[in-house]
């Protein structure tokens, strides 16, 4: 099938959503480096940060191949309004309960998205999706094991985790904000769409949360935190970008 201009626009939007989510959450995860509650967790979040930033680079490279700027330019010179990331990834790391729940919601979404894209007609995207699947597996495993452990922990642990699960849920729904090109992406066999992904994701996280002994937030009672995919962000993204791009802004040719 020949791609129309709308298919290409839709593909670019899809790639930017994924790459920007991974870059921003990768940066947030790296903020736990040196601060993790135990050494192993410090290393876990740092390793996941490294995976995510590596994955974002591979996606920015695909974007570059289809006409966008160089990965470093795209990552380091855009303002918040030009980012397609969802609100979930830009929120500050907060307490560990929130960071774990965000990690659980995001990485199950990421794993399912990669499963879908492993069958996309866009060959370079298909190749990286197949690669990322093996990496994300370790991320979902890590999230699941902590949600399970804390569900069997002290009363305080259970209460705090359930609160984080409920409060983070509307932000998680924002990951699936519909694209203007939803129908085009589905028609061309590029991506089955955000609505289909949300449905698959809700099924998986409901099953897991039930099995661990938590209650599952209702989709119908939640107002998704949307806007991120269209460049409308919370007040937390720009300060993150200012920090992330500090060295690049001082000296764009810096090397180390």
């Amino acid at each position, binding site marked *: 099938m020949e791609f129309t201009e709308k298919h290409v626009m839709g593909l670019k939007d899809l790639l930017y959503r994924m790459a920007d989510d991974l870059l921003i959450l990768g940066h947030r995860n790296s903020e736990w480096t040196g601060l993790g509650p135990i050494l*192993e967790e410090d*290393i*876990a979040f*740092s*390793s*996941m940060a*490294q*995976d*995510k*930033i*590596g*994955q974002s*680079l*591979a996606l920015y490279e695909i974007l570059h191949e289809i006409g966008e700027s160089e990965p470093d330019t795209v990552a380091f010179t855009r303002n918040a309004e030009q980012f397609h990331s969802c609100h979930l990834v830009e929120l500050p790391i907060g307490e560990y309960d929130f960071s774990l729940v965000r990690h659980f919601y995001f990485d199950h979404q990421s794993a399912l998205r990669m499963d879908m894209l492993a069958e996309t007609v866009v060959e*370079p995207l298909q*190749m*990286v999706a*197949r*690669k*990322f*699947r*093996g*990496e994300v*597996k*370790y991320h979902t*495993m*890590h999230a699941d094991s902590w949600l399970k452990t804390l569900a069997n922990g002290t009363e305080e642990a259970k209460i705090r985790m359930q609160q984080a699960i409920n409060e983070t849920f509307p932000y998680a729904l924002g990951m699936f904000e519909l694209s203007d090109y939803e129908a085009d992406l589905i028609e061309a066999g590029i991506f089955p769409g955000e609505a289909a992904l949300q449905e698959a994701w809700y099924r998986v996280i409901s099953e897991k949360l039930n099995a661990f002994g938590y209650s599952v937030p209702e989709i119908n009672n939640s107002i998704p935190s949307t806007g991120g995919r269209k460049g409308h962000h919370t007040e937390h993204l720009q300060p993150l970008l200012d920090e992330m791009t500090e060295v690049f802004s001082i000296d764009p040719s810096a090397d180390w």
Partner: protein
Amino acid sequence: MVMDPEIPTISIVDLGIVTKISSEKDNNAFVQLTPTFSGCPALKIMEQLVIDALKTAGYSEVVVQTSFETQWNTNMISEKGRAALLEHGLAPPPKHDGYFELDVLSDIACPLCGSRNTTMHTPFGPTLCRSMHYCKNCSNAFEAFKPVS
């Protein structure tokens, strides 16, 4: 021979990351590498090591490309490579048939005493490709090369 910069006992060929080699003329060489992990910081170093090795061997036109065309998995490590990992003190990854449950990480043979009476401590070790384990038989902590599908 180009060795892995982080595990100096294993060559990149035995690691399984060299996915294409070609040469059209006497002095020209093309090599394709595939990353073990997307975020592996050793990748750029390995590209450079391949270029340097080929230049030393007399190839003046060298192209090294990194591509996801072939997705690396740990079954691509050769038998010689598995022995080289062990020599470095790393338990080789369990073989799999494309899909595996992460329970396999709790059944790793200790590289020091060979016992399977071990437990996984954390799947995230000092580098992306390693997990950390404890041997209940010889009471040593050890690292394993993680299985990747």
